[in-house]
């Protein structure tokens, strides 16, 4: 498993954890009315900023732990982060998948807002679309690493 392939696995796992946390926190606060009123969007943004920091910490910890665990289990001490032409090609495929998911999702979120949806739910949808796009990108990358590219 190359460094980039391991990164794809870690990104999928940590995305699920981090975005699960975001959905739980934001969903709970949204339904409890924590983001209602004129300052609702600002409160939402502050919560999201904290959650982004926590997500980054989760991602860093997961990357370190996964790579240490991988090295211990397989004996492969090569932790080179060198990305070659195949890695870059696969990354491009992943980015395309993310673009498709995010593009479609953003349009759907705008349609939701246009037809009377709440602003905070719209923001939640945008965030969820970003999460799904990122997840789609990593899944496509892992698929190409496993099945060939």
């Amino acid at each position, binding site marked *: 498993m*190359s460094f980039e392939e391991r990164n794809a696995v870690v990104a999928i796992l940590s995305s699920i954890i981090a975005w699960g946390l975001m959905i739980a926190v934001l969903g709970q606060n949204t339904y409890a009315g924590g983001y209602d009123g004129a300052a609702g969007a600002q409160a939402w943004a502050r919560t999201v900023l904290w959650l982004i920091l926590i997500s980054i910490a989760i991602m860093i910890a997961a990357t370190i732990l996964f790579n240490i665990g991988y090295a211990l289990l397989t004996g492969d001490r090569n932790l080179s982060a060198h990305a*070659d*032409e*195949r890695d870059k090609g696969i990354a491009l495929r992943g980015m395309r998948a993310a673009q498709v998911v995010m593009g479609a999702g953003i349009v759907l979120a705008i349609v939701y807002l246009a037809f009377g949806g709440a602003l905070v739910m719209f923001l939640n949808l945008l965030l969820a679309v970003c999460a799904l796009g990122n997840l789609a990108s990593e899944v496509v990358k892992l698929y190409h690493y496993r*099945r060939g*590219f």
Partner: protein
Amino acid sequence: MTVITNTIRRLRFDAGEMTQKDLAEAVGVTRQTLMAIENGKYFPSLALAFLIAHHFGKPLEEVFQFTPKDKP
């Protein structure tokens, strides 16, 4: 549809059982990429193909073979 095959495995054997890791390092790719090329799961760029051929001191067509297949 086209088929591109290669003789990298045999060339490595002829070069004193050179490992995939050694060849990968020599041409600047990961072992996984070299393995994918050997197994026909990834077709390298022209530059990488030339680099691999150059490493073995062979012309490109001795390392990579192109077989065009006509559509039925």
